[in-house]
């Protein structure tokens, strides 16, 4: 068979979003790949240069639409670093609850999409059924189902509603039971194991050099996690450890990346349960939205020359915001907002990892890296 270029995308079931993967195929084996991104480049960095600091949060929700909370919180930490704001303890706990619930929802969305990538359709429906529960909880906090606009500079928009802790505990316990049902369909199905083990190898040192971080890196047997190595928020007060998968000698393959994310869902669920118990002021008390317990006073202007940067553990890797202050409106707007998208750097590496495998492995490998194109194109 002569080698031929197949273009997979931009609308393609494998791409989980809008991008093209040009694949050079010799028969069934992949010989060369070339990703082509930028289809939904909305120019968020340019828009942010003419918006106030609180308004930018709404755009950061829409960066990666599968995990909106993690992205708006990443921006807020960088903005608080810029404006030097001290966040009250209770607000940090509420933020942790929101971030970890969002991480569980994002991983469930990934697991639901990874099933049909390899052929099993019932997992999609099961995972989305659980994600509904997480979205109910996040809707109580943020007001809508996908984009919450929940964090504010110096704290959070509103306190936990009445009965939130009870419902959260019940739903998370049910979810922790439900994971075993997914594992029966994935871990205990020879077909899945044969399709995912030994496919898409990646060594940790090579991954770090290529800028790949997050669950994809931890699948290689290294416990590097921004919440662990550079602790922020109240992660250091809770009892948890980043899940690490024991990969095969040749490096992390699709199965390890799947295992790490399933473990991470369990860790995040337990983090939320601990945070609800340890919440200063108790999870069942309620404070008015502007209460100093949940929102600190924050300056709205950043003078010329001030900068703020913060690394953040997003559900797909290390996301980061770098903000240079001193834009128009005498500093009310930033001069430059730079966004590090983990998937913008991981997708080219995943495309390289596919070389040598079969056409049928492309969705398996690309799906295991959990691409989210909203954040990739910004």
């Amino acid at each position, binding site marked *: 068979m002569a080698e031929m270029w197949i273009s997979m995308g931009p609308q393609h079931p494998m791409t989980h979003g809008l991008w093209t993967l040009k694949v050079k195929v010799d028969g069934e084996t992949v010989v060369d790949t070339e990703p082509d991104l930028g289809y939904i480049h909305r120019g968020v960095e340019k828009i942010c240069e003419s918006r106030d600091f609180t308004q930018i949060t709404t755009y950061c929700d829409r960066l990666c639409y599968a995990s909106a909370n993690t992205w708006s919180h990443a921006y807020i930490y960088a903005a608080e670093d810029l404006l030097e704001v001290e966040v009250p303890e209770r607000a940090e706990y509420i933020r942790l609850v929101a971030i970890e619930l969002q991480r569980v929802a994002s991983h469930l969305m990934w697991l639901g999409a990874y099933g049909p990538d390899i052929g099993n359709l019932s997992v999609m429906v099961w995972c989305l059924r659980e994600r509904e529960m997480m979205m109910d909880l996040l809707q109580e906090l943020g007001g809508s189902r996908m984009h919450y606009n929940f964090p504010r500079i110096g704290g959070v928009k509103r306190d936990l509603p009445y009965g939130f802790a009870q*419902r959260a505990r019940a739903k998370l316990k049910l979810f922790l039971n439900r994971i075993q049902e997914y594992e029966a369909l994935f871990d205990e199905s020879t077909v899945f194991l044969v399709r995912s083990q030994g496919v898409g190898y990646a060594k940790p040192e090579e991954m770090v050099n290529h800028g790949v971080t997050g669950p994809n890196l931890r699948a290689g047997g290294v416990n590097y996690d921004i919440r662990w190595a550079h602790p922020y928020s109240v992660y250091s007060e809770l009892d948890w450890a980043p899940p690490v998968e024991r990969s095969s000698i*040749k490096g992390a393959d699709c199965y390890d990346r799947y295992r790490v994310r399933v473990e991470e869902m369990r860790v995040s669920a337990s983090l939320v349960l601990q945070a609800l118990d340890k919440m200063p002021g108790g999870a069942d008390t309620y404070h008015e939205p502007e209460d100093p317990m949940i929102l600190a006073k924050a300056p709205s202007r950043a003078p010329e020359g001030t900068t703020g940067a913060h690394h953040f553990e997003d559900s797909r890797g290390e996301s980061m915001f770098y903000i240079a202050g001193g834009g128009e409106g005498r500093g009310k707007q930033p001069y430059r907002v730079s966004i590090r998208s983990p998937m913008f750097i991981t997708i080219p590496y995943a495309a390289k990892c596919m070389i040598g495998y*079969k*056409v049928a492995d492309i969705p398996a490998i690309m799906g295991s890296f959990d691409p989210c194109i909203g954040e990739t194109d910004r």
Partner: protein
Amino acid sequence: MTSSDWLDVAGWSESFSNWSMDNVHDVLPSGDIDMQVTIPSTWAWPEPITMGPIFNMQSGFASIQPALESFMHATIMCTVVFGMMMTTMLAIPYIERKFIGRLMDRLGATTTLRSLWVGESGVTAGEWWNQLPFGMGAPIGWVVNALNSTWGNSHELETVARVNNRSYHGYWFLLPGFFQAFADFMKFATKEHIVPKNADKVVFEVAPVIILATTIMVFAFVPFGPHIYAANPELSLLFMMAIFGIAPLGVFFAGWASNNKYTLIGGMRSAAQLTAYEIPLLITVLGVAVLSGSFNIIEIVDFQMGQDEGNVWNIFLMPLGALLFLVTMIAEVERIPFDMPEAEAELVEGWWTEYGGIRWGLMFAAEYMRSYAACILFALFFLGGWEAPFQHTLSNLPAVGGIFSTVFSVIPGLIWVLLKAWLLFAVFVWIRASLHRVRTDQILEFGWRYLLPLSMLNLVIATILRLQFWTGGPWDLWVPAAVTLVSGGLFVILAIDEDEEALEIQRRPYSTQAVVKASPGSHRK
């Protein structure tokens, strides 16, 4: 004496066509009709020339009457079998939709705990029976509460199912959604037919014809009941398997002709997979023929029924063969887990992508027909065709036997064949809901490396059973019992219990193919 029941469609059609042909024969004028013309001799030709026949309409007709009768009989039987197949096939998509809806728990999210809020605002789902006029619904309410308290969960704050009565879609016995497949087909028939620009036009049109024709011809040899078959040649099994194997050719044509890279890959995958699984399938079917001693499907079923002394179904004699037949048939009809040619994830629709309208609809129907044929064949080969389960033992029971035998004689064999086939299709759907898609090279490797030797082994077992342990009449009881127990035990040992020390080491094997390690720029070297 071959098995038979009152639904003797073949006999009726035979007698009807004889009766009608005889009537035609009697209606025809019986006298000779002289159409001779004689031209008197003239100078040009000495003797007078006589031309034209003297014929008798009746005797002429009598000579061709048997051919006409068999032709009429064959047409009637073909239409009856095809019509029966198409109507009973409507149940197949219905089973798929309803069963997979529950397997995938897709019927509405009542599992989330949002229903926790039930009771807080004092709202409970309405008791629909209270809507009935004049309080007629009250007794239903009592029954509900009684049954619910015995079998149901406790009353207070019961998690609520959606009980408000909105079943204007019809109760289950009205089979809401049964004719959805029919409506879909009509929709396909009205859709536009698009031929890709520089597709291979002729092959593009021929491919669906090949697939559909061969699939329908398979049903010519599949008997639905002792007397319901379109054709019953001596070697019907051989014919049927031969025709069943032609479809991959059409699939490959379709893949090639659509001038689309994805369909090309899909077509090649399908060709490879179907050829790889044709051989184990044929050997397994050969095993069945060997065990039942004949290549005629009706005789195979009769052998299992044992000419009214009662005999054991082949599944108890050849469980390995049944499992192999199931796996190879799933691969033949390209359902998950052997779904590669039509893999959504990377090939979108595989070799179907460029077809639209009635051609796509027909090929989709052909795929369901092939699955339906596979289920019926499994029922005929292994589950004793049109014999009710335990028919012989039940009808010979001392006291109750009479009732059973009358009941079995009332129910035509066709019903049992259909029930078994639908049950088999439910197993197909169950497998579809729980397994992933195996990669093409792994399918081929699994086919050549595991299925082929296993089907050989199955053939060996069948021949040994047939030669050594078969004593002319029905099997003596210990043979099927021994075979089933041995294979059941093997299945439990092989497939159910844990292999502790393998789990201990947790050593994970590498994939079977040698892989060039992907490093940046390695492909450019």
